């Protein structure tokens, strides 16, 4: 049996009934990594010893009848979430040798639930990018076609799930970094509402936008992982205290009574024709499942990218000020004073894209420019959020459209044109600016490359988003298709 191909919920059933052991499951995943990862390069660090030790302990728990939904299940974690004793590089030279003395809350929670860490996944440096080409170490390849990017910045996590090199993964999403790679790799990727999942121990990029979420092989798995991740964490002051339901209770096959809003602005210039067609087909399916489909308008959509630029870069320039080569990270022992030491360490440790964003953010926050740039962006952010508030007030339950305007592009194709690369995020950014829960699920292929369908909900209505995604997914077989690798 090819155990690595199982979903989380399928593996759980087999573990619980003792038909398989976690050690067998983990060995199968590690063998798949051995087979595929030389080509895919999804992982920065693979942790076989930790995995097998955790698997043995999980098997003991299962034997004593204490198996939770994630006990004994292999997981891959994006390399910007701290793992005690395991290198956490954030895809950057500046943190190449950083070994965290503590774990992120999400990591602690998964370990308490008995999950098995198989490795840390590749990413654009400091999560800044849409292709994983800005990793300081190496690019990750799309399992569907290895000359293409997997998307980013959680490209390693998405590729690992797509290539069955893990059962599920965690990613982080600041402007689409879970959903866009999920779309380009043909897996499910879920960004929860802002504050729904603790950010403690997540290496910060843009603190008003960052969220952690799951990448999985189907929507049921997303719901199961969210059950583990969603709770109030006193270690994160923005962590939400809203009650958390059992997200699997929303997984029904009927959408009657729900109103689906389709913004005309999400089908604008720049959208690949085939992507538009697959997404239109998916929307038609929602109608067949009982939902009422309604055309709506998001009049400020054309401003989301510029608003996101200014917001995320300003916040990033402040967050990344902590990398000074004094307490941890790359240092410059040849410097003469502290200013030179900091400038040298940062100049050597950060890559081109990170420097570009720090420079832009510093400029936007500098004396005389704050009102014109950062404050202006926060005002436009209010207008963008109000577009959603209006749609929800008029009875819309979910807003849908394409996740990415294009399918996976070629490695090297956009890397020298930052502005064009940034425009790949225009449909995923609004959920971050407005703090809304949002999922991408596979909705077909264009010439063998996956297309993603995005579903966005009201604040803290992750259940409704998962309901729509699950009902749609179960009416298709796109989530069951696998890339031609490591079979």
């Amino acid at each position, binding site marked *: 049996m090819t155990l690595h191909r199982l979903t989380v919920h399928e593996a759980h059933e087999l573990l619980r009934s003792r038909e398989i052991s976690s050690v067998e499951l983990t060995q199968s995943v590690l063998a798949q990594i051995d087979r595929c990862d030389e080509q895919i390069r999804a992982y920065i660090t693979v942790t076989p010893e930790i995995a097998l030790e955790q698997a043995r302990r999980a098997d003991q728990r299962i034997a004593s009848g204490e198996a939770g939904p994630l006990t004994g299940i292999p997981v891959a974690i994006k390399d910007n979430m701290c793992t005690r004793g395991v290198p956490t590089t954030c895809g950057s030279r500046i943190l190449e040798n950083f070994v965290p003395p503590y774990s992120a809350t999400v990591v602690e929670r998964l370990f308490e639930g008995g999950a098995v860490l198989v490795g840390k996944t590749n990413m654009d440096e400091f999560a800044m990018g849409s292709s994983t080409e800005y990793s300081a170490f190496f690019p990750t390849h799309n399992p569907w076609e290895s000359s293409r990017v997997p998307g980013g910045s959680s490209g390693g996590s998405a590729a690992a799930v797509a290539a069955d090199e893990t059962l599920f993964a965690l990613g982080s999403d600041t402007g689409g970094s879970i959903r866009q790679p999920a779309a380009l790799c043909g897996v499910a990727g879920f960004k929860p509402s802002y504050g729904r999942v603790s950010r403690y121990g997540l290496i910060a990029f843009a603190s008003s936008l960052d969220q952690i979420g799951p990448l999985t092989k189907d929507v049921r798995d997303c719901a199961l992982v969210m059950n583990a991740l969603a709770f109030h964490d006193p270690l994160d002051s923005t962590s939400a205290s809203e009650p958390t339901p059992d997200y699997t209770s929303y997984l029904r096959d009927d959408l009657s009574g729900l109103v689906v809003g389709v913004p005309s602005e999400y089908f604008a210039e720049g959208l690949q024709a085939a992507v538009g067609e697959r997404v239109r087909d998916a929307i038609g399916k929602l109608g067949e499942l009982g939902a009422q489909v309604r055309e709506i308008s998001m009049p*400020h959509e*054309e*401003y989301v990218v*510029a608003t996101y630029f200014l917001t995320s870069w300003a916040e990033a320039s402040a967050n990344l000020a902590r990398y000074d080569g004094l307490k941890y990270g790359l240092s410059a022992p040849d410097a003469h004073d502290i200013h030179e030491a900091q400038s040298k360490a940062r100049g050597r440790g950060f890559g081109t894209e990170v420097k570009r964003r720090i420079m832009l953010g510093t400029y936007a926050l500098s004396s005389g420019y704050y009102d014109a740039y950062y404050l202006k962006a926060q005002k436009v952010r209010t207008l963008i959020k109000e577009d959603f508030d209006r749609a929800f007030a008029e009875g819309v339950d979910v807003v849908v459209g394409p996740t990415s305007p294009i399918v996976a592009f070629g490695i090297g194709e956009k890397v020298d044109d930052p502005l064009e690369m940034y425009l790949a995020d225009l449909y995923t950014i609004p959920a971050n600016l407005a703090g809304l829960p949002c999922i991408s699920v596979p909705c077909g292929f264009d010439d063998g490359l996956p297309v993603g369908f995005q579903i966005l909900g009201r604040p803290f209505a992750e259940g409704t988003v998962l309901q729509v995604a699950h009902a749609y997914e179960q009416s298709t077989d796109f989530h069951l298709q696998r890339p031609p690798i490591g079979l």
Partner: protein
Amino acid sequence: MKITRAEVEHIATLARLELTETEIEQLQSDLSQILEYVDQLNELDTTQVVPTAHVVPQEDVLREDVTRPSLPTEEVLSNAPQVEEGYFRVHAVLPGGER
């Protein structure tokens, strides 16, 4: 929005980034291009708009002021490039100071 070389150098000093000659030239061009793109926000009249501070309701979070266990000093210092007697050792802060 044309950014001058002097502006790039000034921002780099503020951001504590040592840049190579090639990087300065590339950033001068990139920053000019990208700042021109974001200027489109000025098409919108936002004089009456309240800026977003938080997307979801936030309140101050307080806790009891009690001591709790923290990480051992050696673990906190384990990633530091230079350590001395349980402290981070840093470069001279004032001009003429000793390293």
